[in-house]
């Protein structure tokens, strides 16, 4: 590794026109904020969809006022049809997984802060970076366009299993144009994220400033780097899968559609395709994808916790290796989504062992976090509350993974609400908490304004308790045999469970409403919040060495030199109990990098 301070200086001329400053900007910070805005809009859409879903499940025949405006056919008089439920459910999952959970923790915060945290002026390829956002945005537009087609969006779930994804409109409403739009949107998304990885990886490897060795990178920077490596492999596999599925759909090929299938008493023209091939390709992407959703959160939460504990983690190195282990193992476990899929049962056993083993790095991460709290000087604020909440949620969600990792238990729990509870706790809650924590922590730097602490704490309390009220019961429902992806519960078997669903729905609506507090806080603070100082949290990493908000080239023309490890807290320095990475001050440090 070299730390030649002479490195990437792109044509850093500050932009002048409005378009160049705010729309087609080459500045990674603007791009990061654009991604954040995209994720915010997507989250609002995804959450609204979840409200519609939950209301329909709890009160199936009720009219949801106004829903008929979204779709005349899908919700005549506001009463949702079964197909429309599935269509909304598909869009909910797709929007949340792709445009919120991959976009916000990785693309939004990563774009804004990775170059600053490594001490660079920008990413190495600002044009590709700009393209990455606009291609992702285009993907979102294409996806949302499916709401406005004749028979609506696809109803096949965010997993879009074959052959339902390829048989065309004979498969159901939304299976015509809706599927093609979905596949195209996701292919665009993959391209956007690949362009993102194209910037993230060289930034971390080559653009580190003088004195910034790899081990001196903050944990959030490591997390973004590891995530971008995962994305490189995962998205590059999903894209060809989507291409093949589109071909099956529009060009009459039979990659995924088997022979002799009959729908509406008509023999389908396809033949010979492999149903399981789609699942293998999809989950090879799909499992790393969920780690792409959580690893940035792990890095962000670590970063925030350390600042608020006023001491570094017990071992930075172990956390980095654990994140790396999660990334590597994530490719070996994907078959656990396919235990009862008809794949060779030996393969199921083979996949279950790495799945069980992946518990180990996850446990190590939780142990390091928890036991680093010991002997710390924990500060409680909105950011640290969400970070601590992340730990609780990650534990809860992770523990249910224990069950699903075993094929024999999966016989009972596959495709039930147990799975839905598991992934919502880790993704829908823990990863979201990571986003919230990051927002409260970094808003001062991103927007130059402090967010309102009182509102932040109210947001936290309602979200924390609310999320448990929503998603814990999902596990009980699953254990009792409640099948997932049902638009209504009409079986005798499921009737006794409906009161639980009603409880969940009410909790969901209240928790959803609490998010409006966050939205208000975000927008209000953006314009009228207290102006933020450069380093409100007394933190050490390079983003706090910049002015607030950072100038277009991050460091005002003079790149910092790094003298310290990233988390020198608990030292005696002129600044207090911490010394910043870029400060030349030599201090007596109790915490050696292990």
């Amino acid at each position, binding site marked *: 590794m070299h730390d030649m301070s*002479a490195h990437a200086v792109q044509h850093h001329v500050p932009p002048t026109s409005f378009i160049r400053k705010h729309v087609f900007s080459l500045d990674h910070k603007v791009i990061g904020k654009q991604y954040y805005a995209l994720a915010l809009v997507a989250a609002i859409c995804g959450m609204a969809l979840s409200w519609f879903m939950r209301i329909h499940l709890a009160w199936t025949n009720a009219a949801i006022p106004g829903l008929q405006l979204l779709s005349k056919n899908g919700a005549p008089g506001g009463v949702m049809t079964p197909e429309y439920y599935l269509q909304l459910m598909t869009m909910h999952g797709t929007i949340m997984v792709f445009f919120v959970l991959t976009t916000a923790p990785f693309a939004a915060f990563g774009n804004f802060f990775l170059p600053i945290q490594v001490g660079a002026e920008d990413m190495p*390829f600002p044009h590709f970076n700009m393209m990455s956002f606009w291609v992702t945005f285009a993907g979102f537009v294409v996806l949302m366009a499916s709401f406005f087609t004749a028979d609506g969006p696809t109803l096949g779930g965010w997993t879009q299993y074959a052959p339902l994804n390829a048989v065309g409109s004979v498969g159901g409403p939304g299976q015509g144009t809706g599927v093609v739009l979905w596949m195209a949107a996701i292919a665009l998304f993959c391209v956007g994220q690949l362009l993102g990885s194209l910037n993230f990886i*060289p930034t971390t490897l080559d653009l580190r400033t003088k004195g910034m060795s790899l081990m001196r990178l903050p944990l959030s920077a490591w997390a973004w780097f590891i995530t971008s490596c995962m994305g490189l492999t995962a998205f*590059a596999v999903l894209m060809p899968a989507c291409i093949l599925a589109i071909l099956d759909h529009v060009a009459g090929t039979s990659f995924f559609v088997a022979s002799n299938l009959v729908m509406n008493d008509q023999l389908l023209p396809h033949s*010979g395709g*492999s149903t399981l091939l789609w699942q293998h390709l999809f989950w090879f992407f799909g499992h790393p994808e969920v780690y792409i959703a959580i690893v940035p959160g792990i890095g962000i939460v670590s970063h925030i916790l350390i600042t608020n504990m006023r001491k570094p983690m017990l071992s930075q190195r172990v956390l980095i290796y654990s994140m790396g282990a999660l990334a590597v193992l994530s490719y070996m476990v994907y078959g656990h989504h396919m235990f009862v899929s008809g794949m060779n049962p030996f393969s199921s056993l083979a996949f279950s062992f790495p799945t069980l083993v992946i518990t180990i790095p996850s446990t190590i991460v939780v142990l390091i976090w928890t036991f680093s709290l010991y002997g710390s000087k924990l500060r409680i604020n909105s950011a640290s509350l969400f970070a601590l909440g992340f730990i609780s949620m990650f534990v809860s969600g992770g523990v249910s993974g224990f069950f699903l990792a075993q094929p024999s238990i999966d016989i009972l729990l596959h495709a039930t609400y147990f799975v839905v509870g598991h992934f919502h706790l880790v993704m829908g809650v823990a990863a979201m908490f990571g986003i919230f924590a990051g927002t409260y922590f970094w808003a001062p730097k991103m927007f130059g304004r402090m967010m309102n602490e009182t509102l932040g704490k109210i947001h936290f309390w309602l979200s924390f308790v609310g999320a448990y009220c929503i998603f814990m019961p999902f596990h009980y429902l699953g254990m009792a045999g409640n099948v997932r992806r049902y638009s209504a519960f009409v079986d005798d078997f499921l009737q006794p469970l409906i009161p639980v669903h009603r409880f969940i729905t009410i909790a969901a609506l209240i928790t959803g409403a609490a998010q409006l507090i966050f939205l208000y806080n975000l927008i209000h603070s953006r314009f009228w919040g207290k102006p933020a100082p450069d380093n409100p949290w007394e933190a050490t990493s390079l983003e706090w060495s910049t002015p607030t908000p950072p100038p277009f080239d991050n460091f005002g023309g003079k790149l910092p030199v790094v003298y310290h490890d990233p988390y020198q807290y608990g030292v005696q320095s002129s600044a207090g109990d911490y010394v910043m990475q870029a400060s030349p001050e030599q201090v007596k440090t109790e915490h050696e990098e292990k």
Partner: protein
Amino acid sequence: MATTIPEPPQLDLDRLPKPTHSGNSGWRNLVPTDGDLHVALEHSPPASSSAIYVVLFAITMMFAAFSSALIVRKGSSLDWQSFTLPSILYLNTLILLASSVTLEVSRRRVATFMGGLKSRVENPARWLYITLFLGLLFVAGQYAAWSQLRAQGLYLATNPSSSFFYVLTATHALHVLGGLGGLIYVIRKLSKSTLRRNALDATARYWHFMDVLWLYLLCLLWMKL
């Protein structure tokens, strides 16, 4: 990636192009006429040769996915009908290999020209144009291969074997077109004397990779189809 700065070569300072704002500044190891190393450092190229490997890795994963799809699809059903690969493919392969050779020649010539180390290199872009021509010839040859298949009645959906043939060769050809775009970019930058060494090297690596990828695809298609 690690970079070292070896001893700067003994240069005839009068022969060097004058460092203008968008001039030849940007070479490593180059001492500007006024000796202002800071200027050279400030305008150094991005040390991001790792980026091209990121791109190549992603492309590899994509073709790995297609390859595994081919293998699984062939094994999953009895409807696979092999066919003989159009013979023009072998000619196209030679053309593509030749283009890699010409690209290497041009790379060295351009590097020499930009380094100002040889007395006069005429038309440093000539070999780039030759490479570009050969690349276009390759794509045209692929198109001819598709036409030959169509004449035999083998279309995209005729049989899974033909499906994969078209998908793999078309995707490769698309990426080759991207590489041609890169070559055009290099030629333009060279003509304005704003070419950075890294851009040329990255384009060359990409192009050679397209070559290697094509050889792999040819083997795969030959064995499996």
